[in-house]
């Protein structure tokens, strides 16, 4: 027993002194990490470089040979009014959904940390929008917002608030609202889960100490809960933003960008141009406009996480 401890000590010293074991650790650290890094570089970094290269070319699905086209493809893409429509739609969808996702996510997170009967069932139902593949849940919404058989319309008709049909996806304003609603619906559970993780991490004794000192609910909310959860709420907001900003599934399945491109976003427009239209170069240009905002979001998330660590 004593010998074991001695051996263990010896190894510890050995490692600290940079002996053979330490050398092996340095090697192992790289050898174990490298496969993942290589995979990611090969299938994320290289395609990303390729996407930039494509946007300065005239590559199409029919003629995949690479010819330098300079800024011509950019000019062609930017001259298209649909591009500008997609750009502004993307921003509108992202900002509005993000605000709603955070507020509703906070409410839902508070609910999920509370204790009540039947919680497992509520938790199961509440997580459905997030865990279901987006394409499928959007199909469910497509049916819920159907132009003739929408149950929402039926209820409104029964209440005497509506004559005929609403055509949720047929009018530009309503179609945009529908797309936003589906985004908010599917991402609120995710933001709730992120915020919940933050709520659970708040030390209970802090809240109790404040309560003992006579701080009321609002005071505790404003001076303890909100400042302590702000970083995690920021993370939830940014995740919501990134997932809305880059998503094309909801728009593609729900409206295909219609009516008359009123709900077109950058991602879906890039897909329609690049894959369905076969104009790879132009699709690459459109998709590339997603990148600057993503970068900004990544930096912001990093800052929020840093702040969380210093708390």
């Amino acid at each position: 027993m004593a010998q074991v401890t001695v051996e263990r000590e010896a190894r510890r010293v050995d490692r600290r002194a940079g002996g053979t074991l330490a050398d092996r650790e340095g090697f192992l650290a790289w050898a174990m990490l490298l496969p993942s890094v290589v995979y990611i570089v090969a299938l994320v970094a290289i395609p990303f470089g390729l996407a930039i290269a494509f946007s300065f070319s005239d590559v199409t699905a029919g003629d995949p040979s690479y010819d330098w086209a300079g800024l011509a493809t950019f000019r062609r893409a930017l001259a298209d009014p649909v591009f500008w429509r997609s750009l502004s739609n993307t921003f509108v969808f992202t900002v509005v959904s993000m605000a709603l996702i955070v507020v509703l996510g906070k409410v839902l997170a508070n609910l999920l940390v509370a204790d009540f009967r039947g919680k497992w069932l509520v938790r199961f139902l509440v997580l459905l929008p997030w865990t279901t593949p987006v394409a499928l849940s959007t199909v469910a919404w497509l049916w819920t917002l159907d132009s003739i058989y929408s149950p929402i319309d039926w209820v409104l008709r029964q209440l005497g608030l509506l004559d005929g049909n609403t055509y949720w996806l047929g009018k530009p304003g309503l179609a945009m609202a529908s797309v936003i609603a589906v985004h908010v619906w599917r991402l609120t559970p995710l933001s709730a889960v992120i915020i919940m993780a933050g709520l659970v991490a708040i030390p209970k004794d802090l809240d109790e100490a404040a309560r003992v000192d006579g701080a009321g609910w609002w005071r505790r909310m404003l001076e303890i809960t909100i400042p302590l959860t702000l970083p995690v709420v920021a993370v939830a907001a940014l995740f919501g933003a990134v997932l809305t900003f880059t998503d094309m599934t909801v728009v593609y399945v729900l409206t295909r960008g219609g009516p008359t491109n009123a709900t077109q976003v950058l991602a879906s427009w890039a897909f329609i141009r690049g894959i369905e239209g076969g104009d790879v170069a132009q699709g690459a240009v459109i998709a590339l406009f997603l990148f600057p905002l993503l970068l900004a979001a990544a930096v912001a998330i990093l800052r929020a996480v840093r702040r969380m660590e210093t708390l």
Partner: protein
Amino acid sequence: MAAEVVSAAQAERLRRRYARRHVLARTGVYLTALLAAFVCAAPFLWGLVTAFKQNRDLYNPQNSPFLFNLPATSDHVLYLFQQTPFVTFVWNTLWVGLLVVGITLALGLPAAYSLARLNRPWSGPMGIAIFFVYLVPPSLLFLSLSRIVVAVGLQDSTWSLVLVYPTITIPVSVWLLTGFLKAVPRDVEEQAMVDGYSRLGAFVRAVLPLAFPGIVAVVVFAFTLTASEFIYALAFISPSTAKGVSTGVPTELIRGDVFFWQSLQAATVAVAVPIALVFNLFLDRFIAGFTMGAVKG
């Protein structure tokens, strides 16, 4: 004596006030819970009713959409399983998911161990860098990846997804696994090394079994990520027999303008419920994993 009576009455009043407040708070919690559950589940609940409706019942705008105005029928659900390639979609999703999860663990576990335990100065930044790859969206890469897929001869093959999906699952999984591995006490592997295992042996024989629950959670998470992916699957694959659930259902069960609504909704519910059930079992572990990954160990 009198003072005591007053204080008792006061206490009674206070107690009633708190009791009232308590009842109000509880009612609020239950109402919010009901409302949240209803809003989140409504499309699926309605889908479930729709799936068993007869055509004559469904396609009559006067009929209540929430009730069976005519007897329920399982025809459309049977149609889904027997006459459509839905079973093929499920099968494709399953085997792609399992292979991708296998690749993810094979590459991600060693990487996570390297980041969690073999303290290099770059471990922290590298972990965050890998996690940020998760934020690089498919909508930015699908065009160039589709050219790469064509170049390696995998277009229209489900194998293209096996190749590409690990780029989505590895970053998140490494993050989660790093957290779970950090949670294993260091003494465990030191003891194993004292007992004669190499560093690698200690990792495989002593650390992995202890991290097993976390690994299962990562398997579930990675699998659902692959099952939900839409853009790559839509861009790379067009033959219906090679599609998975997420692209197959919306493209193949809608032919032109003809929607097989009952079968569509049956498919949605049939996919949504099992995934959500499994996910629920592991939710607490995901939360633990995500926060642990951020903690310096």
